[in-house]
């Protein structure tokens, strides 16, 4: 079924089968099922190994000898997906097989029983793409609370509505400093595809959180799965954002003023009390205040945008000696700051030079660089400017 070619010492296998075939047993309107189709499209023809813990993703493909999966798939024990994926990924690497190992796990396997295993794989920064399809419930066992269930949701184990708020698993993953973490929505296809592309271009543990409406558990119409996904984002209930290296936050889609009621109206899992009380609104406000603060503290421009945004300038006056430029630039590089532009201009006295560097970095980082540069023995002075490029008139050398 597949063609095999040798590229750069590593064998590349392409697949002709879809990752997730039609005729599977997923319920009508299953968010997970749509998510698997999108995953297939995001990865195009590339081969991959899938690891799914014991959950709907093991039941929905059907029973032996049939399976809806068109890629090698390991159904692991419930808590073990990241550990099993670790073994697969390590051995694939030992054998120069570059295809990604992808965990596809529900919120039970991610937020609850598998959290320690996931945390350890994240801490080791295993080369795994981990996708959590979050239906905010133990759907496979008929709808019990998980720690991903939002407050106010009626489940078989919280018949009066869940008292506790949804666990913030993104914050937990960001705290591990994983190279990439992002949320995904089934109503934002371009955003989904772009994030999968970023994930594929990144190495190490990549964590993706997909809100996955579950008509059976949410008491919603199968035809409303995409609309529910859209309303969750538009109302601010499920923010779309990404986190690079656990530090740089970028918000992708902000709430557009859509009332939360519109989201709640399409499902029957929230109690009346939850709809009326302020708890859900307060949670959304708190979540957004935190997210915006994180996004504000750490500029959200990514690599592709950085070139046009050199908005801070370091002007360094140095003695005109060999290798001074390299040493000054080295101080900037050591802090991981990219130099966008650099201008070097000798002063009329032929003994001093101005080095002016444009950088895209937050103020405190630039201040720290300035302090380290001024300690270099050939450096006379350092100035930091914001906005426009500083006027570089010669002035008089000290």
């Amino acid at each position, binding site marked *: 079924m597949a063609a095999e070619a040798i590229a750069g010492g590593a064998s590349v296998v392409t697949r002709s089968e879809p990752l997730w075939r039609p005729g599977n047993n997923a319920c009508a309107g299953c968010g997970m099922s749509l998510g698997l189709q999108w995953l297939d499209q995001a990865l195009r023809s590339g081969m991959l190994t899938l690891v799914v813990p014991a959950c709907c993703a*093991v039941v929905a493909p059907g029973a032996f000898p049939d399976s809806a999966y068109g*890629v*090698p798939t390991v159904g692991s024990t419930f808590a073990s997906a990241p550990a099993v994926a670790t073994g697969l990924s390590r051995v694939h690497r030992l054998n120069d*097989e570059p295809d990604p190992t992808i965990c596809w796990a529900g919120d039970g396997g991610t937020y609850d029983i598998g959290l320690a295993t996931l945390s350890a794989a994240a801490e080791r920064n295993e080369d795994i793409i981990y996708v959590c399809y979050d239906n905010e419930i133990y759907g496979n066992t008929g709808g019990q609370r998980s720690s991903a269930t939002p407050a106010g949701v009626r489940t078989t184990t919280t018949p009066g509505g869940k008292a506790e708020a949804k666990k913030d698993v993104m914050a937990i993953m960001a705290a591990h400093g994983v190279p990439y973490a992002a949320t995904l929505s089934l109503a934002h296809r371009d955003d989904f595809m772009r994030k999968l592309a970023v994930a594929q271009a990144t190495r190490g543990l990549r964590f993706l959180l997909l809100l996955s409406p579950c008509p059976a558990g949410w008491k919603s119409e199968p035809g409303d799965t995409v609309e529910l996904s859209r309303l969750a984002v538009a109302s601010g209930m499920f923010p779309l954002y990404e986190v690079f290296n656990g530090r740089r936050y970028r918000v992708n889609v902000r709430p557009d003023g859509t009332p939360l009621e519109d989201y709640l109206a399409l499902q029957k899992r929230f109690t009346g009390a939850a709809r009326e009380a302020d708890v859900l609104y307060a949670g959304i406000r708190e979540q957004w205040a935190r997210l915006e603060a994180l996004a504000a503290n750490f500029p959200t421009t990514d690599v592709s945008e950085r070139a046009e945004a050199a908005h801070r300038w370091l002007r360094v006056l140095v003695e005109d000696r060999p290798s001074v430029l390299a040493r000054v630039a080295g101080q900037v590089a050591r802090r991981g700051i990219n130099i966008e532009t650099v201008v070097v201009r000798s002063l009329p006295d032929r003994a001093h030079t101005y080095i002016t560097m444009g950088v895209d970095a937050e103020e405190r980082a630039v201040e720290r660089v300035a302090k380290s540069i001024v300690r270099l023995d050939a450096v006379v002075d350092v100035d930091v400017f914001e906005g426009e490029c500083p006027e570089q008139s010669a002035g008089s050398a000290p």
Partner: protein
Amino acid sequence: MPRALVTGNQAVGAMLAAAGEANRFARGCCSGVYPITPQTEIMETLTAFPFTKGSVVPVESEHSAMGVCIGASIAGARAFSASSSNGLLYMTENVLAAGYYRLPIVLVAVNRTIGPPWNIWVDQGDSLALRDAAMLQFYCESHQDLVDTVLLAFRIAEDSRVLLPTLVALDGFVLSLAIWEFALPDRGMVHAYLPPLDLPHRIRRDHPRVYGGMTWPRDTQRQREDIERAMEAVPAVIREAADEFETVFGRRPAGAFPAAHTDDAELVLVACNTMARTALHVVAARRARGERVGFVRARLFRPFLRDEFTQAIGPARRVAVLDRNHSPGSGGIFWSEIVTSLAGRSDVLAQDYIVGLGGTDVSYSLIDGIVDDLAAREEPVPPVFVEEVA
């Protein structure tokens, strides 16, 4: 062959590493490891070993240690790990899974009592709690027995007629920390003995398969039956593996039930692990006094070869089973296997003696007393808990 003088744990670690390294021209090796007393020295040996094509992953739990081995083995690598006591219990779900996936993972159990109450000393309750896993189980008495059995374990587990995980047990501290001399198989010999692993059902990207998907009841029962058939193939595979071992290493490894003085014995002592060596001394002393006492060591517990056991005890009419384990409500676990093996043999009195739980010393005099006790009995009694007299 060079001689080595190291701890039991170091001997095991060296053999696991040698077996892993021997697969470097195939798909390499991989091990998930997690520390627990008294096994820790093994995982430290593995993490320090400079594998040419191998990966040792220090994970966050025994459950994940076996999870890593499962992923690695499905990917076609030689996989192994080690644990003890509650660590083996924490790993249990994935040990059973490894058997049902039919993966030839070698797991070393350094026997330690299960807590609470916490106790770091030896008994075999931990590995025997894995009794019903789809897994072979060997019990070792010495460093030589250990290194030979680890190599045999890979050879047998990876045989296409078997393809089951294999456990190799040794006594915590008593053997794991003991320094003892043994013939150390060198790397070339290990490589000659262990062919490159070519797992028939490993993941192939050009042939997608699902491992551990759903099965309907009938297919599930058939899968279990396949495992029983694989267990039935074990004796023949062991014989071939032992023949080949003798060709490569110049000595024959022990069998399922090594025996001594059983040809004309009236009473036979049965024991496993280091207790067996003490029992053998008792038997030798009694033989020197002209008593017809024999000895059988239970080395292979799974599969339990009932016919080989009944042959091993010879004509004896009294069998004293020393169980350093306890299945509450049943008695000793080796004993229950043995009485099943002796079904229909009303002429044989098999008496269970529970000894050495929690690492209590199983001394020469204690075993000597058991011989006297059984010699005086006419009827079996419920399991007798024997304590050393201070």
